[in-house]
């Protein structure tokens, strides 16, 4: 008898609730990191864990993202099938954006730059909360802007072509 709620299949398609679940874990971790503050060793360890999670999602793909693994192993089997599948590129891009902020936050911790730490982790938390609460993918919105910038000549041309 076939499984009533088959897991998403198809090249590059994922259950959109996976990244959202992952963003909830990320939000909790980053909140704790903020509360512990720069200089806290437990905070540094949590931040390292989150950075590695971003790195695996960004560099290895969403199937290797640990929070996604938790979702598929423990949460997904308890839910019904997703209403719609989603392409994996935008959430993967969002993981890269998260990675940049997390690495900046780590640098802030290591080099004792409190402002860099607060700003980086603060913005990463905003992005994760938007994803959790509103299913809004900040990285996905930046995707087209990134393409536009990449398509422009690297030097010289200011972004003055707005209508």
């Amino acid at each position: 008898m076939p499984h009533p709620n088959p897991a998403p299949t198809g090249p590059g398609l994922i259950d959109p609730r996976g990244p959202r679940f992952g963003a909830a874990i990320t939000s909790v971790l980053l909140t704790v990191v903020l509360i512990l503050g720069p200089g806290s060793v437990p905070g540094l360890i949590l931040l390292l864990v989150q950075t590695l999670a971003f790195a695996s999602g960004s560099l290895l793909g969403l199937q290797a993202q640990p929070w996604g693994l938790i979702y598929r192993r423990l949460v997904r089997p308890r839910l019904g099938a997703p209403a719609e599948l989603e392409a994996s590129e935008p959430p993967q891009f969002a993981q890269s954006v998260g990675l940049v902020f997390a690495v900046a936050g780590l640098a802030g911790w290591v080099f004792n730059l409190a402002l860099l730490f607060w700003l980086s982790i603060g913005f990463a938390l905003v992005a994760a909360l938007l994803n959790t609460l509103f299913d809004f993918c900040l990285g996905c919105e930046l995707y087209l802007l990134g393409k536009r910038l990449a398509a422009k000549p690297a030097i010289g041309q200011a972004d003055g072509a707005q209508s």
Partner: protein
Amino acid sequence: MTGVWIALAALALALAFGGYRRLTDGRARKVRTAPALDAARLGAPLGSQATFVQFSATVCAPCRATHHVLSQVVADTDGVRHVDINAETRLDLVEEFGITRTPTVLLLDADGVIRNRIVGAARTSDVLNALQQVDRAVAA
């Protein structure tokens, strides 16, 4: 203690921005500057009454929902066409019309003049209202 305040500020910012987006996304807004787009540059024929030009990305969940809404509306209305463009392949149009997000929908009248702009997942009621104002056949 600083961290608690920053976490609260992040939460407030996320709620404000997300709430604002939830209110404004998918609304049809009138375009007053009235730039135009013809079939040659669009790369597809215009509808005799109106044309929806949708900018999508390969990777955009609300684009699919918008495509579905517009396909339905077009199927129910004569003389209206729906052109779904992959924004990455038409960066010239993206630059020209200042498209910053996908999905963005431009509603063209019979002459190709851009009359409405819908940013974010399009709402059916807004789409129909905008179309009524543009399409004389529907309005009549």
